[in-house]
């Protein structure tokens, strides 16, 4: 079996949003949509903090599709558009997506965005990987773990490759010798909203 995942080092993440924008670029994500967001955890403003000055803490949390092993979105999709692929990734077949957005209601991570209108690109044209499908109005979209980029032969998704702090690791959780498996074993690990039972493949560690 294969189960691709991303491990995020919370200590190293400096909240720069390079992953958010390089993902947008690589996957041709339209205006005002992001597949990956960097949250300032617990704060109500970007680069905020928790607590009262000067007793403050801060943690940045990049959040995208968690590629859950027990994905709520996959379970509720009425057409089978959302499905698992051969690498254990949760993917969307845009042709089958009817835009019901049950997946968005079900996902506890707010990982999906929706093409409510004709997608706009103020860049004036398409960008990113050549093989990434252009999504039409009326479909949901989300992190694909850069499946086209990986299929082309790159060894890691764009967010992992572009992180200036080298805070991300990509690999196969079903391979006990992979770096992500080692991190999962050795580090103090957090899965987001573990209690929801979605079994996210993405994990965070210090």
């Amino acid at each position, binding site marked *: 079996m294969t189960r691709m995942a991303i491990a995020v080092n919370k200590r190293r993440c*400096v909240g*720069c949003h*390079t992953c958010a924008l390089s993902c947008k670029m690589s996957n041709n994500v339209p205006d005002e949509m992001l597949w990956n967001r960097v949250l300032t955890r617990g704060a109500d403003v*970007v680069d905020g903090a928790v607590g009262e000055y*000067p007793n403050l*803490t801060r943690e940045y949390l990049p959040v995208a599709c968690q590629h859950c092993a027990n994905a709520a979105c996959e379970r509720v999709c009425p057409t089978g558009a959302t499905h698992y692929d051969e690498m254990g990734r949760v993917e969307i077949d845009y042709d089958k997506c009817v835009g019901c957005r049950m997946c968005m209601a079900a996902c506890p991570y707010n990982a999906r965005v929706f093409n409510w209108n004709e997608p706009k690109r103020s860049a004036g044209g398409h*960008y990113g990987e050549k093989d990434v499908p252009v999504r039409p109005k009326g479909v949901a979209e989300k992190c694909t773990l850069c499946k*086209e980029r990986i299929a082309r032969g790159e060894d890691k998704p764009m967010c992992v490759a572009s992180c200036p*702090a080298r805070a991300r690791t990509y690999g196969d959780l079903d391979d006990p010798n992979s770096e992500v498996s080692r991190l999962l074993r050795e580090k103090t690990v957090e899965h987001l909203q573990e209690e929801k039972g979605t079994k996210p493949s993405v994990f965070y560690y210090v």
Partner: protein
Amino acid sequence: MSDVKSTPLPLSRRGFLKGTGAVAGAAACGGLFSTAGWLSPSKAVAEPVEEKICTYHQGHCGGRCPIQCTVRDGRLVMIEPNPHVTEDRYKTMCLKGVSELERIYGEHRIQSPLKRVGERCSGEFEAISWDQAYKEIAEKVHEIQGEYGKGSIAYYGGGECHEPQILKDIMELATFVSEGAVDIGIANGLERAYGFGDTVAYATQESRDWVNSNVVLVMGTNYLETSLTTVRNWFDAQDAGAKFIVVDPNYSTSAGKADQWIPIEPATDAAFVLGMISCMLDEELYDEDFVRNKTSLPFLVNKQTGIILRDHEAGYYDYWVPEENTAEGNPFYVLKDGQVVAFDTVADPDLSGSVVIDGQEYCTQFDILKEKQKPYTLEWASEITHVPAETIAQVARDYAEGPSAFVVGWGGNEKFANADIAGHATALATALTGNIGKPGAGVGCYTCGMWNGHIVYLGAWDTGYEPTEEPTYVDVTTIRTDPESNIHGIFGQGDFTQKFANLALTEEWVKDLDLAVSMDIYFSEATRLSDYILPITSRFEYDEPTGVVTSGYNSIIMQQKVIDPLFEAKTFMTLQRELATALGFDQAKYFPQNNEEYNNATFAAYEYDPWIQSLTHQDLVNANAWLHNPSTVEPRLEFSDQVFTTASGRMDVYYDDLCEVDQAFPTWVPAIEAYEGNPLKETYPLTFYNGHSRYRIHNQFHNAKWLDEVFTTRIELAPADMEARGIKSGEKVEVFNDRGSFTVYAFANPSIRPGTTRMIEGCASRYLDGEGNGGYNSVTNDTVDPRGYLLYSGPQTPFSDTLVEVRKA
């Protein structure tokens, strides 16, 4: 599931039904859809023409990231770290680089030459042709220079465009001295103590070496935002056991990742360090061997005059020590067992002692220091900085233990009028502890790869032009107000207004000029003030195969043409050649024929490094625009031989040329406006801190739409300060003081020190809230502390030494 690999664009159910719509959208979508695809499904769409071009991105952040650009059907579609780079640490890029994909095509590009039609500064323009622009500008230039002389037009060259600035030399325009009163504040007090830093206090140590540090003391810099491409070095050092102490009024990103954050009252860094010094003296935490043998502290000084005892009078301090003032030409003197001897004839001279020579009393610098430091107790420092005395003592002990790095920056206290005092105190702390020139130790500004690695300035082009007049120099701090000024025009490549605080005065000055020309990629504050605006290309656009070479992070890098010039923009080189022609010059005499010629010449002229001198333009082309400098495998560490580039060869920490302002050793001076207890705080209670961040580079990127998706331009205040003013987070506010005002959106952020505000520097008024009610420089402080004119680089502009009030707009 459709197999997306077999067709570049999936010919799907939706695609088929919406075929017409796709075709109609072809023009807007850069030609990726075509009727051919719809009509012949067996070959879905013509395979797009794709190229990958290696170049480098930005100069002004110091990242100089080597990148690979993908161009598809003539459009820039992807930016990635250059895969040909051999070391992972040089494979970098950041969110700003990525945002260029939209930005260069965006609505804020200057698309054609523009001529002012309204009042100056009103921002009303009409599009004109290049020919008309050149003709009219040339006429005006001849008129002004004919009447007032060549140097009556000033030139400002900014950071976004990296092409060589040649025309200004042929036009004999007036140029600004030093760095134009920025980035030289702390350096003024720090650099001369050891003689390294190019007037902006580049660090003596590469941050890769922090893995050897015991303590990294970070004061007045937000390294994890402003040095984004080298943040790995911070974390690697923490992994290796280095303790990071961040001293900052705000809970910055760096403060949030530090082992210890010390909140401090703005512009009191000098007091903090003076408190540390007292602790180090009292507890004898200084490195005695280093102090005796590697610093000027044992040197004898005339107690009455404060002048250092030399063989003969040294004359005025100069960074470049003339022969007659070096240690050999003009020795210093120390005491050894009470006897006066030349300093380089003994080891371990006395740290303390007095002697009478020719009826004058002399003692050691160390004696003077101990006396000078008496009032600067930990309790005194605590009162000024609002940091507990015990914390200052703890930092002093940690730092003194060593090896320690002392990391200062170009933001923070740098932008207040007392920055040089902080710099001097930092030099003293370094000298007392010997935290320089050994693994794990260093001092200065460590920001970003290019300036923290092996710094190289490749040569300027020799135009062969014979000047007809003496060169004219102008000073940022006086050009607008000097009644004797002979400046009647300005040419700005980039936003020249950003060099000046107090925008109203800048506008007044420009209104009095006869000509203002802006050459820029994007609309800025300066373009609004100009008579003519000439569009130049972004760093991705060229009209020949390559751009020029430059120094990168431990490397030599080159720009290559990624796409053709957009709109009617021209490369700066082409513009310069054409304007030179319009002015009546035979441009072929003075300009390189092309960038290849320029590159070969600039390498050949670089005598300081045989490896660089042997390089050719073709070498860079063959190497995919990035060549690792072979002498930079190990982290850079200056002064490992502990011989300093000073008059004495030691750390010269006593500045006797500053006796007249009592700054031979640092005397505490508060901020010039934003100081505690200023009665002005009754009216304008908030410090207006404007600094650097990950989202911008000076005045650049305020107009990048993709960056807006993660962060919008704003002023930030402490929640209590917002509440007290009845302002909700996200509401529009007016920020004002006696100098002017502007409107912007305000957000409450608990990270901000109460009583202060935080904004990112450089934002042109058009990017604030779209309404153009003043720019952030409308409020900034342009007061010059006269002490600045005694310092090597002159005074710096205290942009953040500014008090404001904020109210709902």
